[in-house]
């Protein structure tokens, strides 16, 4: 295959753009980014996070991804002499791990390799079996899908030899692509035939540009998703992907300015680690408001622990759990019998059983209280961060106001810087509560909490300064205050993170499993 043909898959891209087709949703970005797109190398030194200098990465646009994909195929093809279409299927089979493919190609049983990847070995081109088509005398074939007799020129198939008419093929591929969202994994239309349809054939048979585009998207998508060195930016509607040299839980910044963790795709969450954050997010999804309500309105049956809501009636409870049916008192949770008819003078507080029941209840309430404590603080910072754009707007206004008060543009930049730092602090603080929730108390955790407290209170003061009205009288005064405060915040935030990182290195942190 010559190199021209390697681009056929994307050859129709330019056609779409020039015709002004509205289906190309891949590039909905600020025109301001246009100039940056050509030079796609994005060095991490522009990142605001300090600890990323040693973690180089690139931001790739959809076109870059395609180019990268073609490069990968070329690279393999320069070593292995098989058709590009086959290389693509093989690479996809190995999740785009070139080394693994090479290893299997040269070390193992090649026939087995092709069989596993669902392609016909390109080395066995001798006889293409005509399994399906029934040739009739006058150069006509019957298509086994629509049962129409077609001239052979209108019948087609892939290496497995199953032939169907082009209309049926097109319809079949369209259904697979549009309805089932399949890309590289569409197999031959014949029953039980595992051979995959290569991209060249798909692009040849599909005419509708929308279907073609969807197919390209699906292929790019699966390329990024199964490639461990690539990750889509998780920001809504962002079509960039990040390419790293080795996967690691590090902050990466997309061209859309979204900063996220390369390892897990969540917002950058230092100091807490990915696995704890995942657990936390799951817990928040499960619990939050529901548990809040349960804590306020229910008790548990002292015998079977089923959750009970008392919606009226007397204090004599009979558990509705058919295998339990415990009689107990709602007030003291002790067994009902000793209460007799004088429940209202429920004076059996120090009975052992009732005490145990209350203790158990207390314990679960305490666990819930603890969770809600951390959850509230976490949510609070998250909420405040969501208002960040509002704050930027109001600060911008203030900056303009100050410029009217004989301050130069450069002199008022401190306000924007202050908001940047405020946001960074909130983001860090937010995740410190997740970290703290799982942290078991020891000497280091006390130091951590002191650091956290310090950043927290400084951040709140800074936030207050920024919300406060800036008048002409206090201008010089407030500038000094704000600058001092944000420097302090920034410094303390870094110290807090350093301390946690040191703890990771020295194994200080012990986790509880609530």
């Amino acid at each position, binding site marked *: 295959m010559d190199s021209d043909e390697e681009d056929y898959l994307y050859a129709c891209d330019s056609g779409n753009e020039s015709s002004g087709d509205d289906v190309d949703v891949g590039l909905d970005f600020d025109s301001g980014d246009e100039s940056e797109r050509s030079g796609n190398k994005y060095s991490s030194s522009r990142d605001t996070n300090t600890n990323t200098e040693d973690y180089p990465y690139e931001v790739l646009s959809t076109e870059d991804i395609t180019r990268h994909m073609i490069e990968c195929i070329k690279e393999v093809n320069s070593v292995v002499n098989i058709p590009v279409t086959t290389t693509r299927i093989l690479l996809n089979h190995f999740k785009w791990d070139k080394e693994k493919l090479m290893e299997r190609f040269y070390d193992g049983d090649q026939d087995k390799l092709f069989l596993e990847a669902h392609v016909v070995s390109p080395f066995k081109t001798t006889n293409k079996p005509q399994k399906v088509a029934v040739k009739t005398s006058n150069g006509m074939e019957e298509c086994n899908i629509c049962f129409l007799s077609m001239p052979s020129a209108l019948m087609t198939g892939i290496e497995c030899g199953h032939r169907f008419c082009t209309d049926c093929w097109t319809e079949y591929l369209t259904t697979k692509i549009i*309805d089932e969202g399949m890309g590289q994994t569409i197999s031959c239309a014949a029953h039980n*035939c595992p051979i995959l349809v290569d991209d060249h054939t798909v692009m040849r048979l599909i005419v509708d540009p929308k279907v073609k585009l969807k197919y390209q998207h699906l292929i790019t998508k699966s390329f990024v998703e199964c490639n461990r060195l690539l990750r889509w930016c998780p920001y809504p509607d962002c079509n960039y992907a990040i390419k790293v040299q080795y996967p690691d839980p590090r902050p990466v910044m997309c061209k859309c300015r979204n900063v996220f963790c390369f390892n897990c795709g969540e917002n950058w969450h230092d100091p807490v680690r990915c696995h704890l954050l995942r657990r936390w997010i799951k817990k928040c999804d499960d619990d939050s408001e529901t548990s809040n309500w349960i804590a306020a309105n229910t008790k548990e049956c002292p015998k079977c622990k089923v959750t009970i809501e008392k919606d009226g009636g007397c204090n004599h409870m009979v558990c509705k759990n058919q295998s339990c049916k415990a009689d107990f008192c709602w007030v003291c949770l002790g067994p009902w019998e000793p209460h007799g008819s004088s429940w209202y003078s429920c004076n059996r507080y120090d009975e052992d059983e009732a005490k145990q029941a209350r203790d158990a209840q207390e314990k679960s309430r305490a666990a819930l209280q603890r969770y809600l404590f951390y959850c509230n603080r976490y949510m609070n910072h998250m909420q405040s961060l969501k208002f960040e754009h509002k704050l930027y707007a109001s600060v911008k206004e203030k900056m303009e106001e100050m410029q009217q008060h004989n301050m130069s543009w450069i002199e008022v930049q401190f306000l924007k810087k202050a908001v940047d730092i405020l946001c960074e602090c909130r983001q860090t603080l937010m995740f410190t509560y997740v970290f703290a929730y799982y942290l078991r108390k020891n000497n280091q955790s006390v130091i951590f909490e002191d650091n956290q407290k310090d950043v927290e209170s400084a951040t709140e003061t800074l936030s207050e300064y920024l919300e406060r009205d800036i008048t002409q009288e206090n201008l010089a005064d407030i500038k000094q205050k704000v600058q001092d405060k944000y420097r302090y915040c920034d410094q303390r935030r870094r110290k807090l993170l350093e301390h946690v990182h040191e703890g990771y290195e020295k194994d200080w942190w012990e986790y509880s499993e609530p």
Partner: protein
Amino acid sequence: MSLLKEPPPGVTVDVDQAHTKLTEWVVHMEGASGTLYEGEKFQLQFKFSPKYPFDSPEVIFVGEHIPIHPHIYSNGHICLSILTEDWSPALSVQAICLSIISMLSSCKEKKRPPDNSYYVKTCSANPKKTKWWYHDDTV
């Protein structure tokens, strides 16, 4: 088509029914001789969507008599991979009937699927909406 000309043994299409509505067929089927279902009569209902044959038909057992089989639920739903994910447009009604007859014929013990009562209570009326989990191809 070939189903009318050379049907598998014991299979007939209810032609009158198919004439009234081309997208809904009823196929009469008889248990093959020498199997556990010998002499039993069943009805299969086929519903074809406008996308047929690229979309698989919806196939269930209907009528009074639903075969008792480890892959057939008492509401007539059939757990057979070619009816959903392994469907190919090159398959035909005849091929489906053949598959079902062979599925019945290879059965060694008449019983319902283990999760029958739960499934029948909770499933959608359309078996294609069930996320089938094909785990046993011995029967």
